[in-house]
C-alpha cells in the first residue's frame, strides 16, 4: 500500500482526523494549553497519554518495528527550545494551522516563525552541528 496514491489518501485521512481532534481536544486554545502546562487542568495531559497508549497497542498489534532513534547531541537542546517556543506561542508545528482554521489569524505569524526556524536550523546544522537525522527530518 506504500504507493504514492496510498500515501496521499493516508495523509488526507490522517490530516483531517488530526485537525478535527486537536481542535476539539483544545490543543489549539492557548488558555487550555497554559492550564495543562501549569497543572490547573490535567485533561489534555491525559488525552496525550491516552493517545500514546493507543498508539503503543496499535503498533504492537501491527508489529511496527522500532527504528534505531539514537539520542544525538541535538535532542535535549532541541527539545528545550521546542518546549519554550510551545509555551510562548501555543503552537507546536501543526497547531498554528488549526489555530488559523479556528479564526486566530495572528497564528500565521507563528507559522512564518516555524518556517524560518526550520530553515535556520537546517542551515546551522549543515554549517556547524552536523547532526544525524531524526523522525521529523525525513
Amino acid at each position, binding site marked *: 500500500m506504500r504507493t*504514492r496514491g496510498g*500515501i496521499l489518501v493516508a*495523509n*488526507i485521512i490522517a*490530516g483531517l482526523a488530526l*485537525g*478535527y*481532534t486537536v*481542535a*476539539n481536544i483544545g490543543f489549539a486554545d*492557548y*488558555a487550555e*494549553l497554559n492550564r495543562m*502546562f*501549569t497543572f490547573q487542568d490535567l485533561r489534555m495531559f491525559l488525552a*496525550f497519554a491516552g493517545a500514546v497508549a493507543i*498508539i*503503543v497497542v496499535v*503498533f504492537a498489534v501491527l508489529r511496527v518495528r522500532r527504528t534505531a*532513534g539514537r*539520542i544525538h547531541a541535538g*535532542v*535535549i*537542546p*532541541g*527539545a*528545550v*527550545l*521546542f*518546549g*519554550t*517556543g*510551545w*509555551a*510562548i*506561542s*501555543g503552537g*507546536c*508545528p501543526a497547531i*498554528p494551522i*488549526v489555530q488559523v482554521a*479556528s*479564526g486566530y*489569524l495572528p497564528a500565521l505569524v*507563528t*507559522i*512564518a*516563525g*516555524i518556517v*524560518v*526556524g*526550520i*530553515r535556520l*536550523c*537546517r542551515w546551522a*546544522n549543515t554549517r556547524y552541528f552536523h*547532526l544525524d*537525522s531524526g*523522525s*521529523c527530518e525525513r
Partner: protein
Amino acid sequence: MASLLPAPLVSQVALLLSVFVGGWVAAVTAGRFQLRLDMGDAFRQIVTDKPIEMVGALFVGGVLVGFGTRLAGGCSSGHGLNGCGRLQPVSIVATAVFFGTGVLVSFLLWKVI
C-alpha cells in the same frame, strides 16, 4: 510503475491542507469559529496585550518551535506520539524534556512575568 518513494510534495501539502480543513470543520461545527486579530484572553493576560509584542512573541516562539523541532529531530507528534508510541528511548527523552520545559516556561509566564 507504482513507486515506493517517500511521500512526495503533493502528499505533504495535502496533509497540511487536511489539518486545516479538519480544524475548520471542528471549529465551525462547535460554534467556535470567529475571525479575530488576537490570540484570545489568556494570551493577552499571560504573555502580552500589546499587538506589536504579540506578533514578536508569536514569531520568536515559532522560530524556537521550528528550530527546536529540527534540532531534536521531532516534535509533539513525531517524538511525542509516534516515537513514544514505538517506545523509542530518544523520543521518550525528548518528550520528557519538551513537556518539562513547557511546564517551567508556563509557570514563569503565569507567576513571574
